[in-house]
């Protein structure tokens, strides 16, 4: 993985010193909250309901065991012994004291981590496919480009005060696991007919109160032109994006109001003057960055097949976990393992310091010291020999992290919601917990099959409800929580925005409503190979409306 060079070390160190000074001056009363707030946000420090919250960047979701151990150390020393992995492949601490944040940042810097640009109207942490470098179906590892974008966008003078925040995601496979079409810029790394690497470029995706699927504005951008083209897009956005209305300030609104065709014309015109300038990526530099991401040397372990076969016969829980949480690797002797942070009835994305340390040990012992955080709020061991899968499973089971539910209905994305978040209108986590408990039976979950359930506690949609096969949006109505259900969303290569199915449900009703939707699907699907989303696309909302609202639906 990428290692800081001297410049990176100095840069992060200087930033820690700068923020330590700002905190000191704030605590001494030398600067006001109005002056301090934008400074703390630039360093990932929010004020939530119960305490401050610190968001730490995990660039493109990639970690090593030393870094994960430091995250555990911070959880234990400065927080309440746990951390919360987020839908942006980051980690958040819910309880740090402001006075401790400089020390936390210094600890992070010691393992090449920081919280720079995890908030504010700048280019945020660039996210990537969590199976990058391991996936059997990828053309090339997209993370070198995410790293190039990270270096370019860090304290970029022109793009530090954009109209609004700006998110970029990169995938290297046709099958999109990075939800690129829900980002401000989505990049799909691919090869052209000549075998050269480049990107399909999508612009203007986003969720929030105005969900939009990104539009493709270029089918093939040569890799050398990545930064000049990104600059052109950001320039057009910086110039024309709305600053008068926060709710209309994202690039998705600009794309929508300008039209994709006209916006493309503007971007291409801007790019003309940039493409042969200093932003052209030198081939040697791209390869040098890519070398950091070279996969570990994976020794042949052909005994894996036989061992997995035997272990499968021996252990039902291993067999189920293998079916659900183990993904094909580009090397047939290896596999990528999803560590579910969605234990039945647990808070999605939470991991205790002890669990983080145990996972770090497992990564070191069996996973070539590599870890990933997925935007679905799970952890991933990208390179595990199939021969070691049983040992990894058993070690995970010991710490309660062998839940075999990856991609199933209990693998729920949920934002922190009203239990923590100052912006939320309703709780998300308890809804996730209750649904998880209702569908606790793995047999039932497996019968239901792939089902992406996503919950947000407000219209900002951090819980990605718009793109859930089943989405739940919590709102406040007359002082109480109300949950709207959307159906038919997806965040893959066929990204769609879900449709609101009808009137909302109270907190006591929402789990029953979800069960009704699921039971309806089971009744009307063609057979068990037709996934929920396929059934919805075939039949539309009608059978679900009928089941949820009965005669009410007919009258409407």
């Amino acid at each position, binding site marked *: 993985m990428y290692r800081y060079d001297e410049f990176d070390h100095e840069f992060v160190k200087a930033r820690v010193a700068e923020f330590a000074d700002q905190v000191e001056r*704030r*605590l001494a*009363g030398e600067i*006001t*909250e109005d002056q301090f707030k934008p400074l703390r946000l630039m360093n990932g420090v929010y*004020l*939530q*309901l*119960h*305490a*401050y919250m610190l968001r730490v960047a995990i660039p493109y979701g990639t970690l090593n065991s030393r870094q994960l151990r430091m995250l555990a150390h911070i959880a234990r020393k400065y927080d*309440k012994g746990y951390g919360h992995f987020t839908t942006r492949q980051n980690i958040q601490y*819910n*309880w*740090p*004291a*402001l*006075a401790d944040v400089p020390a936390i940042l210094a600890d992070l810097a010691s393992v090449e981590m920081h919280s720079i640009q995890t908030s504010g109207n700048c280019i945020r942490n660039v996210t990537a496919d969590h199976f990058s470098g391991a996936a059997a179906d990828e053309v090339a590892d997209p993370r070198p480009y995410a790293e190039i974008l990270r270096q370019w966008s860090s304290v970029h003078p022109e793009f530090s005060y954009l109209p609004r925040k700006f998110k970029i995601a990169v995938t290297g496979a046709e099958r999109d696991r990075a939800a690129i079409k829900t980002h401000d810029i989505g990049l799909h790394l691919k090869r052209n007919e000549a075998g050269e690497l480049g990107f399909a470029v999508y612009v203007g995706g986003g969720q929030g109160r105005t969900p939009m699927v990104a539009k493709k504005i270029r089918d093939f951008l040569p890799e050398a032109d990545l930064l000049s083209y990104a600059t052109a897009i950001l320039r057009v956005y910086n110039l024309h994006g709305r600053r008068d209305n926060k709710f209309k300030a994202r690039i998705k609104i600009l794309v929508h109001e300008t039209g994709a065709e006209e916006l493309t014309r503007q971007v291409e015109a801007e790019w003309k003057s940039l493409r042969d300038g200093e932003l052209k990526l030198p081939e040697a530099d791209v390869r040098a960055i890519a070398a950091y991401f070279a996969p570990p040397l994976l020794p042949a372990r052909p005994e894996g097949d036989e061992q997995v076969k035997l272990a499968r016969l021996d252990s039902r829980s291993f067999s189920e976990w293998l079916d659900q949480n183990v993904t094909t690797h580009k090397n047939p002797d290896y596999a990528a393992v999803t560590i579910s942070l969605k234990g039945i009835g647990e*808070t999605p994305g939470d991991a205790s310091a002890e669990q983080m340390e145990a996972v770090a040990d497992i990564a070191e012992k069996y996973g070539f010291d590599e870890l990933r955080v997925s935007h679905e709020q799970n952890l991933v061991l990208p390179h595990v020999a199939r021969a070691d899968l049983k040992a990894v499973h058993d070690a995970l089971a010991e710490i309660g992290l062998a839940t075999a539910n990856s991609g199933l209905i209990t693998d729920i994305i949920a934002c922190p919601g*009203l*239990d*923590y978040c100052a912006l*939320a209108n*309703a*709780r998300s*986590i*308890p809804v996730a*917990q209750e649904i998880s408990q209702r569908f606790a039976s793995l047999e039932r979950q497996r019968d239901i099959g792939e089902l992406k359930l996503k919950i947000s506690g407000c219209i900002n949609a951090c819980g990605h409800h718009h793109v859930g096969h089943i989405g739940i949006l919590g709102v*406040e109505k007359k*002082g*109480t*929580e109300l949950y709207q259900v959307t159906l038919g969303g997806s965040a893959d290569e066929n990204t769609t925005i879900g449709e609101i199915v009808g009137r909302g449900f109270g907190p006591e009703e929402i789990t029953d409503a979800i069960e009704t939707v699921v039971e309806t699907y089971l009744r009307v699907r063609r057979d068990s190979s037709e996934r929920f989303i396929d059934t919805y696309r075939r039949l539309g909302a009608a059978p679900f409306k009928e089941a949820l609202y009965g005669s009410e639906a007919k009258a409407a």
Partner: protein
Amino acid sequence: MKVLTANRLVDGEAVWFSAAHRWSETIEGSEIAADKAAEEHLEAIARAATDNNEVVDAALIDVQVVDGGIRPLRLREQIRAAGPTNRVDHGKQARPPVSQAA
């Protein structure tokens, strides 16, 4: 009826302004404003505490008195006063029942 709440600057802890005229870590014993004049008095305290950098995000919130205890009307404030509902081992609810003054 309203009480004054904020987050303490140094650590973000949710605090309420108490009848004993100091910032308390629990809502019990808060100074209750029952009329406009009392609300204005609390607002003045909020401004002063903000100006001298004791607290941030100070605000008056609606409450009612239930069985002798102060209960915020909005769920958001109920959760602030108790702690997250998914982790009853965290927040004010995890503390011993005796009121702990700041």
